[in-house]
């Protein structure tokens, strides 16, 4: 398989994995919302950090750390960088709008700090992942 073909296959896989990751993040927020066990110092509390940290890292560098330099360069070429930039812009908007929504929501029902942070971070990262996945997937 040539490097081009490898990069193409990995690109498709990356788009799919990102879409699934977004779904997992949202599901986790729904699962953990209002549960104090997930807001305490310990394994459960830290699990959220690991999840968020992983996907922030992927959004930052585009993933594809395993393959060699050339395949990674093809995976993260000009177009992919532009797509990632557009995705992160949407993530920023999502973060701010969700933050505002949580603020307004807090007038109607008390929202714990941990839950608000999970909603904002999961929403923003999921928006970025889904946008990136969509932009990449539709080109294949």
């Amino acid at each position, binding site marked *: 398989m040539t490097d081009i073909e490898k990069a193409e296959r990995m690109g498709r896989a990356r788009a799919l994995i990102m879409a699934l990751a977004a779904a997992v993040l949202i599901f986790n927020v729904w699962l953990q919302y209002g549960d104090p066990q997930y807001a305490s110092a310990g394994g459960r509390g830290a699990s959220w950090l690991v999840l*968020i940290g992983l996907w*922030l890292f992927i959004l930052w560098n585009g993933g594809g750390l395993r393959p060699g330099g050339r395949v990674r360069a093809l995976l993260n070429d000009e177009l992919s960088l532009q797509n990632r930039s*557009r995705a992160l812009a949407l993530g920023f*908007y999502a*973060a*701010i709008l969700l933050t505002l929504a949580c603020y307004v929501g807090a007038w109607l029902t008390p929202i714990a700090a941990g*839950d608000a*942070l999970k909603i*904002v971070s999961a929403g923003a*990262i999921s928006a970025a992942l889904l946008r990136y996945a969509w932009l990449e997937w539709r080109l294949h």
Partner: protein
Amino acid sequence: MTTTDYEKAERLGRKRAQMLPLFAILFLTQQASYFSGPNVDSGRPVDHIRIAAWLAMSIVLLLVLATGGGWFRSREVRALMNDEATQAHRNDAFRFAFFAAMIACVGLYVLGLFEPVGGRDVIHVVMSCGIGAALVRFGMLERRAYRDA
């Protein structure tokens, strides 16, 4: 496009580059007053006004970032003010601000595991980091572009 449009866009663009970091300082100063003042949940009318002012300012600043400002100028002037380079700067600012907001979320989450933290307080901090970072980064990039010209 006339020479006057170019001159207007140049002047307004420079002004915008100077104002953006000032907006960030203003926004962050307003946030500081939120944390240093009495609890906004006390229900006093002045607290409602403070919250409304903060929400209004957040939305206006977000719109400025999204559109580049110059709302009352002609389409030609706005197109010049928001050309390719400015759009690239804005995208860069949004990337930067996204990660700034997420780092704030992570930091506050860690803090919340060990210390009690208020829901509204974290929201204020995340908003400050997000919008403040975007304004500062966008302003810096625009200022650098004008300085090098």
